[in-house]
């Protein structure tokens, strides 16, 4: 896998590396700088491991002011900067370039303030997603977005990618749960946006910044909503003879007015692999739904009974309502282990398109046709309630031809998602992975408007280089071209 082209590093910057490292040491202290090759190797890639670039240096700042000093310096000297959380991006969002300084916020992981009365917490963004929920759990609260990587991923990365998770059907994604930000602009200016109140004053800059993939600045602190957890939650498992029936059942549930907290879908290849790994007791069916609802015991019982009735017209082969905490854990066990289980038997390429639910059966058929045509197997696991697909295309990473085919098949799958009215990415972000597919979803004037906003925040395009926007058509590329022409 290496179809995405990364620009040639700036030789003048590479030549100045020793001086830059010395300057960075002076700015934030030697302890906070990683300059040796072995140390830098740990930062050369993220969870899209097919792409690797050794960064110029890595800075591990401890404060917002340190980040401001480093950014001001880099801006003055035209040095590119890549912000990094835990490096769990599946789209290459944290991939460095050889001429860039990585600023990793992982040391900035404190909970600064918890306000249960107003239901907000102020944290440094190097905190892991799960640690926010852990910090407020004793009081019965939680932080809602729950990406699969929540044990490792940082809020910084969640803000960068506007991460979702299994439970966002009811509670929304990152952008719906962030009220305020402290951010360092590329020139080192520190700004505060929003706060513990709802809807920041003026333009919705918080809304623009969440999901901007490190293109607009480096966020250092956030005020997030914390929610009181429901009294209880319980899943049920429903097996079907066809993906179509499962898809229609999802539509029937949502159409009825019931909004479960999660509706997860797995197809037969995914079920088999997960069952072999996790021994969750899944039935061997064509498609499986895990539907979870929340509330008091009586509410849960009533909702699961209603969902059972709604499922019946679609001839479920298996219908299992959890009766205990152990059974609930068993139902979730296979799903939660899915990515690891599949990773054990094969390398995989995880896609992230979103489609209108009505297109589900059609799209699943087409995905299987596309992967067949490339001689590859595919397992489908996804958040069905909101149409966010995660086809896992299986391939052998040591086989360059297979890797290439996987990437081609992935691109075709995403083009299909857009063609049926969906989008390239529901929660993983564009990164480098989907950068060159952006014109499939957006035309030149859509992209031009997005890039003008990038230029507002980052006039010299130094932040998180080579990501999100296709290399052709960028204002910097145009500027260079026009200079060459002159």
């Amino acid at each position, binding site marked *: 896998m290496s179809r995405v082209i990364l620009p040639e590093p700036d030789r003048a910057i590479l030549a100045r590396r020793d001086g830059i490292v010395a300057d960075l040491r002076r700015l934030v202290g030697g302890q906070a700088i990683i300059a040796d090759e072995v140390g830098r190797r740990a930062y050369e890639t993220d969870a899209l491991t097919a792409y690797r670039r050794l960064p110029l240096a890595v800075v591990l700042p401890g404060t917002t002011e340190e980040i401001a000093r480093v950014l001001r310096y880099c801006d003055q000297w035209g040095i590119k900067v890549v912000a990094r959380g835990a490096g769990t991006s599946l789209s290459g969002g944290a991939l460095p370039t050889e001429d860039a300084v990585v600023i990793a916020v992982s040391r900035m992981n404190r909970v600064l303030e918890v*306000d*249960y*009365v*107003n*239901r907000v917490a102020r944290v440094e963004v190097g905190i892991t997603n799960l640690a926010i929920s852990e910090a407020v759990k004793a009081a*019965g609260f939680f932080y809602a977005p729950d990406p699969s990587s929540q044990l490792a991923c940082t809020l910084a990365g969640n803000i960068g*990618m506007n991460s*979702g998770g299994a439970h966002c059907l009811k509670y*929304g994604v990152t*952008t*719906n749960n962030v009220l305020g930000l402290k951010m360092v*602009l590329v020139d080192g200016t*520190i*700004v505060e*946006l929003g*706060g513990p*109140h*709802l*809807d*920041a*004053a*003026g*333009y*919705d*800059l918080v*809304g*623009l910044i*969440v*999901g901007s993939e490190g293109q607009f600045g480096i966020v250092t602190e956030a005020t997030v909503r914390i929610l009181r957890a*429901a*009294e209880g939650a319980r899943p049920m498992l429903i097996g079907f003879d066809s993906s179509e029936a499962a898809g229609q059942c999802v*539509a*029937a549930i*949502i159409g009825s*007015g019931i909004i479960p907290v999660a509706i997860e879908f797995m197809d037969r290849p995914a079920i088999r692999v997960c069952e072999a790994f996790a021994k969750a007791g899944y039935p061997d069916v064509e498609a499986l739904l895990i539907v979870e609802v929340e509330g*008091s015991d*009586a*509410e849960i019982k*009533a909702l699961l009974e209603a969902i059972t009735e709604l499922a019946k017209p679609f001839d479920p082969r298996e219908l299992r309502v959890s009766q205990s905490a152990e059974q609930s854990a068993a139902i979730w066990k296979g799903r939660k282990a899915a990515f690891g289980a599949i990773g054990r038997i094969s390398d995989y390429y995880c896609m992230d398109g*979103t*489609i*209108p*639910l*009505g297109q589900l059966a059609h799209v699943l058929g087409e995905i299987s046709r596309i992967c067949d045509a490339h001689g590859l197997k595919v397992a489908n696991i996804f958040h069905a309630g909101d*149409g966010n697909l995660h086809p896992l295309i299986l391939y052998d990473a040591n086989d360059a031809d297979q890797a290439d085919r996987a990437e081609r098949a992935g691109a075709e799958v995403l083009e299909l998602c857009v063609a049926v009215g969906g*989008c390239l990415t*529901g929660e993983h972000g*564009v990164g480098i992975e989907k950068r060159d597919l*952006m014109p499939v*979803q957006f*035309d030149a004037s*859509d992209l031009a*408007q*997005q890039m*003008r*906003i*990038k*230029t*507002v925040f980052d006039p010299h395009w130094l932040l998180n280089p080579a990501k*999100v926007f296709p290399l052709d058509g960028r204002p910097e590329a145009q500027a260079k071209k026009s200079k060459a022409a002159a």
Partner: protein
Amino acid sequence: MPSDVRPVDEREVSRILREAAQAATPIELKGAGSKHNIGRPMTTTLGLSTGALRGITLYEPNEMVMAARSGTPLSLLEESLAERGQMLAFEPASLGTAAGGEARGATIGGVFATNLSGARRIMVGAARDHLLGLRAVNGRGEIFKAGGRVMKNVTGVDLCRGLAGSWGTLAVMSEVTFKVLPMPEHTETLVLLGLPDEIAIEVLCTAMGAPFEVSGAVHLQPTMVARLEHEGLRGQGQAVTALRLENFKASVDYRKGKLKALLKAYGEIHDLDHDNSLALWQELRALALLKASDAPLWRISTAPSTGPKVVAAIARYMDCSAFYDWAGGLIWLELLPTTDAGAADVRRVIATHGGHATLIRAAAEVRAAVDVFQPLEPGVGTISRQLKAAFDPAGILNPGRMYADF
């Protein structure tokens, strides 16, 4: 008031804006014009109404998504939604009414352009949280789209969020796509009477911090209660603190019992049944109790527990009456008329306590003289000014409506 042009499609909007940009003609954007009196007065020479861009273009109830041209009346699309048992969950308030306008024709474009959310915002999010996609024309006359029609979408810069709440200063939305939700089967309200603000907000915050899914949390001072049409409550002649519960009836009954037990120390708790509840919350959404006056009206957003402190601090300088929404975090504050509509005091109090304030209703000469929207910190002001230029370099779209210099 300048005469309006009413383009019939996006291409015509594009042509008008291209010509206006070339001639540097400032334009006032409007849907039905219900919020014309809000913001700084503008000296525009052309009005552009989206009123002819009408019609629902997509409705998929099973996918909980609808799209409509921006000039579609809110009432029209809410009727279509109701036929399928669905709604705009963020229940946009009738802001135009509060500013002395006629809210009946309010358009869906105007709702998103002002990020208008009502009482349920505390549970389901703001208007902009429901905006999935849009088509728009920027100040150069270029047509662009953003977002899409699916629930989860992180592809590219989230321009929907940039435009929601930008008051028509960045682009003309031509079509919006948004999430809809099922209407609750049953609604009930718990009411406490006669509580002072501090205690009332404590009640609301306690309820919001419990796992019982409160979907509306308001407190009305007695002067506001006196304006209610709801006779049962108006007749009480004292402050009203109300909590809304929605969903299936059995679930509402259960949560009602739990909440009453939780809040019993605060005094007697009265029930409003389904019909009475719908009437009360409909009245609050219409902001009917705010239109009875032409006194200056502020809309203040702050942390809920700070709400009563803000009101008490302002009350030290002048007489005021408050209607708290969002568990205390949103304050509709009416003041006695003064030369600056209380701006100096309101701004000073907000600077101390945090949050932001918008002057919703005041005479044009007052709105021209004071900051109507919350003044921005210098760094944020710089970005905001450049953001405006990134959409509208000639400065033709609602110039000066939000801020004096852009």
